[in-house]
């Protein structure tokens, strides 16, 4: 342990939730070890126990206010799965329209508002030459978004005025001037322009979501058996409003988001080449989202060690969880009473640092076939490409051709962002296709949005799962019902996979692995660490969950076709 130094970064900002990263660096400022730690425990599953299964959705939804719709949906789907209730096609479409709009909204907010300041130096943007900036944008798009010199001048003026007013607000004390910032003043200005526009884009998208879901965050349009927003569905004006918002958004993605990412790739080719931010190369997808005739948006499958030729089918029975390094009692013998394991907090060191030799996080460690996995847009794009998905491959090929990157290059900090941008573009087009499906359905007089069931007549013991691809990766909710009440509840969440701690076996979680080997230009301003971690789009409120001893063997949950496994 000679000449190593520990750096604590807490709070990691511009993410959802309370995340701490600790890294150990050697004398050359190269990261040799890393620990990711979730610092908040709430216990939503404990709260769910004993409640009426029909009510799970509204509570489980509060797991996260960012991924807000997906927990609501997965929870209700798990209950429907347990009771073998098949929802009407219209209901599935409405749910998909809302979920996929959320994909796009999440991706846009993630890149511009939560992540871009790791690449964009706002102070440098003030030195931009306006006509040069406009020309710069022309390199990456035939029709760059809101790119006139006059518009850029207004943006620059706005920023100048803001800086002059003295209070930097959210932008105070950033890593401005750091040598790891590579974009030119002009490229920075183009990005800042889109940062501001993206704030409006995400607001527009939230209106689209609210059309069918009542509001966002925390929509309110789902019930066990279907959706409630039938009046909105039958209102042509609402469908029209939705389509035109998506149209506007797609315009932004094609003319701003994608070109900006290309600009980024160009500036960071050496980082991509060095594989900065790469994990061990295990990717997992469950696939899903039917549309048209037998088509589906995402492919399911598992890739190990960047072996793109060998794709195993995704088998949820191979998922296990452990907590040897997490703050739960994991060495208690299997309880005959099926009680959940209790939080077992072993505290921090006296100086506030993690006890890195023992338990160090509220996030538990999920494993697939005993292996650490990475989930999310990167996994979906790689698996989709590798499986020759007719939906995904054309978009990926176009992007790769334009930028000259290879498939392996996506498995980096920058590449993760590229995958996310391509996915946003695909999702927008999917929304149009899905809307056509809906209109087709309504046209032929299918107005059903709910499958009738009589709760009192359902079996009082049941178990089921709702497993979906959601913006940050694979999400599973698992429910066990006894005496018509929730006897046990568990959520296995994308960030739980990516922010996983170490386990009993050798190996690190994805965040941790992505940091190894990165060189910090200035250990007191660890911008490179933030950049790698942010590229996963962490969402910690989601990730922290009570682990149930029974939950270690998920195979006992029946996994049904309702979640459209690929």
């Amino acid at each position, binding site marked *: 342990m000679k000449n190593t130094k520990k750096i604590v970064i807490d709070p990691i900002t511009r993410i959802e939730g309370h995340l701490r990263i600790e890294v150990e660096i050697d004398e050359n400022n190269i990261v040799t070890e890393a620990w990711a730690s979730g610092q908040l425990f709430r216990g939503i599953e404990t709260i769910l126990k004993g409640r009426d299964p029909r009510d799970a959705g509204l509570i489980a939804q509060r797991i996260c206010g960012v991924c807000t719709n997906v927990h609501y949906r997965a929870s209700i789907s798990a209950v429907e799965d347990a009771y073998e209730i098949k929802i009407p096609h219209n209901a599935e479409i409405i749910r998909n329209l809302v979920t996929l709009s959320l994909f796009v909204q999440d991706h846009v907010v993630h890149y511009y508002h939560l992540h871009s300041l790791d690449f964009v130096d706002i102070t440098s943007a003030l030195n931009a030459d306006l006509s040069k900036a406009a020309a710069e944008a022309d390199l990456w798009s035939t029709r760059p978004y809101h790119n006139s010199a006059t518009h850029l001048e207004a943006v620059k003026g706005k920023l100048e005025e803001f800086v002059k007013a003295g209070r930097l607000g959210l932008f105070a004390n950033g890593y401005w001037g750091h040598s790891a910032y590579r974009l030119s003043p002009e490229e920075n200005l183009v990005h800042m322009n889109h940062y501001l526009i993206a704030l409006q884009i995400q607001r527009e998208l939230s209106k689209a979501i609210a059309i069918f879901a009542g509001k966002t965050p925390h*929509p309110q349009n789902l019930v066990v058996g279907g959706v409630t927003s039938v009046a909105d569905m039958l209102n042509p004006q609402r469908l029209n409003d939705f389509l035109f918002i998506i149209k506007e958004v797609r315009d932004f993605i094609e003319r701003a988001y994608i070109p900006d990412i290309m600009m980024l790739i160009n500036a960071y080719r050496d980082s991509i080449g060095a594989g900065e931010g790469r994990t061990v190369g295990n990717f997992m997808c469950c696939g899903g989202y039917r549309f048209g005739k037998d088509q589906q948006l995402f492919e399911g499958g598992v890739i190990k060690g960047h072996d793109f030729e060998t794709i195993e089918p995704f088998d949820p029975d191979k998922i296990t969880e452990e907590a040897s390094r997490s703050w739960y009692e994991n060495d208690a013998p299997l309880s005959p009473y099926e009680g959940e394991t209790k939080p077992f907090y072993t505290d921090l060191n006296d100086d506030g640092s993690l006890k890195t030799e023992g338990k160090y996080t509220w996030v538990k460690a999920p494993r697939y076939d005993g292996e650490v996995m990475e989930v999310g847009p990167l996994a979906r794009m790689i698996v989709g490409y590798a499986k020759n998905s007719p939906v995904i491959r054309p978009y990926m090929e176009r992007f790769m051709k334009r930028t000259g990157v290879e498939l392996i290059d996506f498995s980096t900090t920058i590449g993760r962002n590229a995958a996310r941008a391509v996915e946003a573009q695909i999702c927008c087009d999917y929304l149009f296709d899905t809307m056509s499906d809906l209109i087709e359905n309504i046209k032929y007089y299918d107005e059903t949005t709910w499958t009738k069931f009589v709760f009192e007549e359902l079996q009082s013991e049941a178990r089921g799962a709702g497993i979906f691809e959601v913006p940050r990766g694979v999400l599973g909710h698992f429910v066990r019902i006894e005496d018509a009440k929730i006897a046990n509840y568990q959520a296995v969440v994308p960030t739980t996979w990516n922010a996983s701690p170490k386990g009993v076996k050798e190996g690190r979680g994805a965040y941790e692995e992505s940091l190894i080997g990165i060189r910090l230009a200035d250990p007191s301003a660890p911008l490179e660490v933030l950049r790698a971690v942010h590229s996963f789009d962490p969402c910690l409120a989601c990730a922290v969950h009570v682990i149930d001893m029974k939950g270690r063997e998920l195979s006992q949950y029946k996994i049904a076709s309702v979640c459209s496994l690929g």
Partner: protein
Amino acid sequence: MRIVIVGGGIAAVYIANSLMERASELEVVIVSQEKHPPYDRIHLCKLLEGGNRADMIALELHPNVKLELDQKIISIDPHSKRVFSERAAFHYDKLILATGSVPKSLFDISGIENAATFRSQGDCERIAQGMVGKNVVIVGAGPIALELLDTLMRSDAPQSITLLVRKNYLYSEVISREALALIQGIFEADKRVRIQFNDQIIGKEISGNTITRLITSQREISNPFLIFGVGIDPNIAYARETLECSKGILVDERMRTSDENIYCVGEAAQLRAGEFIAGRVKECTLQADVAIANLLGDESKTFSEEVSIDGLKVGSFLFADVTATDFDPKESGNETILISHRDRIDQYIVNHDRLKRFIGINTNIDLLALKQLIQTDAPIDASYLYSNRLMSKYGRLVCSCEGVHELELVEIIKENAVTSFGELKEHSKAGRTCGRCKQDICAIIEATPVDPQEAARLKAEKAAAAQAAELEKVRARIEKYNRLHPLNQLNPKNFHEALKSFEMSREFNRWVSMITASMHLHPQFEESVNEAVMQLNKIPIIWLELSDCTGNSEAFIKTSHPKVDDLILKYISLDYHELLMAASGDQSESVLESILHNDSGKYLLIVEGAVPLGLDGKFLRIGPKGETGIDLLRRVAKDAVAVIAVGSCAYDGGVVAAAPNPTGAVGVAEALERNDIINLPGCPTNPINIVGTLLQYIMFDEFPKLDSRNRPEWAYGFRVHDNCERRGHYDAEEFVLEWGDEGAKKGWCLFEMGCKGPYADLNCSLVKFNEGTSWPVQAGHGCFACGQGKIAFDSYANNRKLEVENEK
């Protein structure tokens, strides 16, 4: 739900009407032992003045209340939830007992035709017929006896009237000698009247069913008509077997009896913690309000006795009485201070420099001021009382329940051209709580000439003056703000320049108008709002996320008017917000430190999320030192100019504190043990309510008017149900009965699908979400009252009607 009210007086009617007003879907039944529809006992005397005046004292009853007359309740069966009269049984879900009291008599007068008590309309009819040509003997010395005496004096029917007083005082044992002499003189000016002190009935001669002669310790009275006005006992014989009773039926401070489904109010009730309260209508209505609130599920309301004010107009003189709750006539420290002038007497009873009671005759003292003096328990001295003996500037107190003075009333009458008691209703509640002063008010209305033109002029004048005063106040506050914040660099001159350069002045103006409207301010305030907006960006804001899901931050960045980019770049200085800020780790910590240090006492703190207290707060740790959430909160809240708790979790723990509350989570106010936290609950909170609250702070240098839960009234003073776009369907009883049914397609009411709009106070139905795109009711799902805090997640977050409603 079926609610049965037993009783036939003011209390019963008040309860029934209030219930119908608050929840018109209820079934309310009044069961009364009287033959007459409910009437106002206070004005019984009017009946004795001859003529058919029964309708004058009849009480107005909501038309949907069912009335069962001549049903004397004899027992209750709480297990089967029924009450029984001799002839019928009535089922209830909730029972309210308001049976009042029965008058005492000194011997059994049943069957005797020339003796009566004075309590009911029947009694009055008996007295009016029976007293003609008789020597009337009234036994008693209290307010009832005196009012009766006063009434009978005005009739020619009695040959003589004797007031038989067992002791040596009238009205109250503490009354001054001077007052006593004054009252006695006024009464005995009528030659037929004789007041006999230290006297009582010691014998009687009865022939058949008539008393022919009464023998008192001082003389004999032949051809008498005897009336007992000696006092009352709670009327509770029917309840003694089933409910815990002492003198009255015992109730807790929520007016609940020993059975959870039975409430009792008024003279039949006795608080476990105290006495039973007789003859005070205001208390009775307060108790009724408490019982109603609890019965409808609001357990926050409790009853506690207040300082009482009583006014009694007896013929040619006026009684006024203010009594402290802890007044004890036997207390040795009591001293009397008497200030008298001609036929006016002000009697103060003081104990250790504290005012305990005031009895005034023909006084014009401001009784409300005295009430306040007693309530604040402030020390007083005699010279203060002397110098304050003059008329309050509004004249005498006419309605003690509502605190309306004579000149205020005259002003209201003139300004609104009021010509009848009925017309007064929309302008003042005077005379409508206990009703005792109704006749008095009618007389004032009659005596006040009105002119509609003049009324309009007065009204406009007053409105203008009020608005000018209000604007002046706003300006003064903005001036004060500018003094407090000298670094503010924007002013009206460069501000418009700045606006122009951002090409956003139109956007800005829209925002100003929207905020002005949603804060219920007059358009004239726009200018002030405009000025206030300029100040916003100079106030540093720290936004802490504790045990949260980031939902409120997500909602906040979806704000429009102003657009979020303008909001964070221009209008506010959001200096610390973990979701959005550029800096992390040590860098973000130093941002926080610098605000705490440089802007101490100036920055605003917004908190999102619950505060976990379990595990010594270690369920949440933030920052390089691993500070617990609660420690960080305490540190940052200490020097904040104000703390705003955003979202239901910050309000009372919200979903995080839902049963079994695994992390011991509480709201910000509870965690900090402070009662000055501004709460903006909601899951998430509508950004309009956050922005509006911030703006109000800038405008007024203080926060908006808050309700009892510290929520701004302008956002939380509405019931979702009352302003719901589907309310018309509720009223028309058009309900969605199954998801996706025809009613759902037509947007009918979701009440039957478990919508909790009736239990939610929030402005969602008015402002909606995501720029007014939709809200849960529009999406066909219904409301689950998410803004009510953790109770929403334990009781409302489902698609079923509340249990109480299911019983219906």
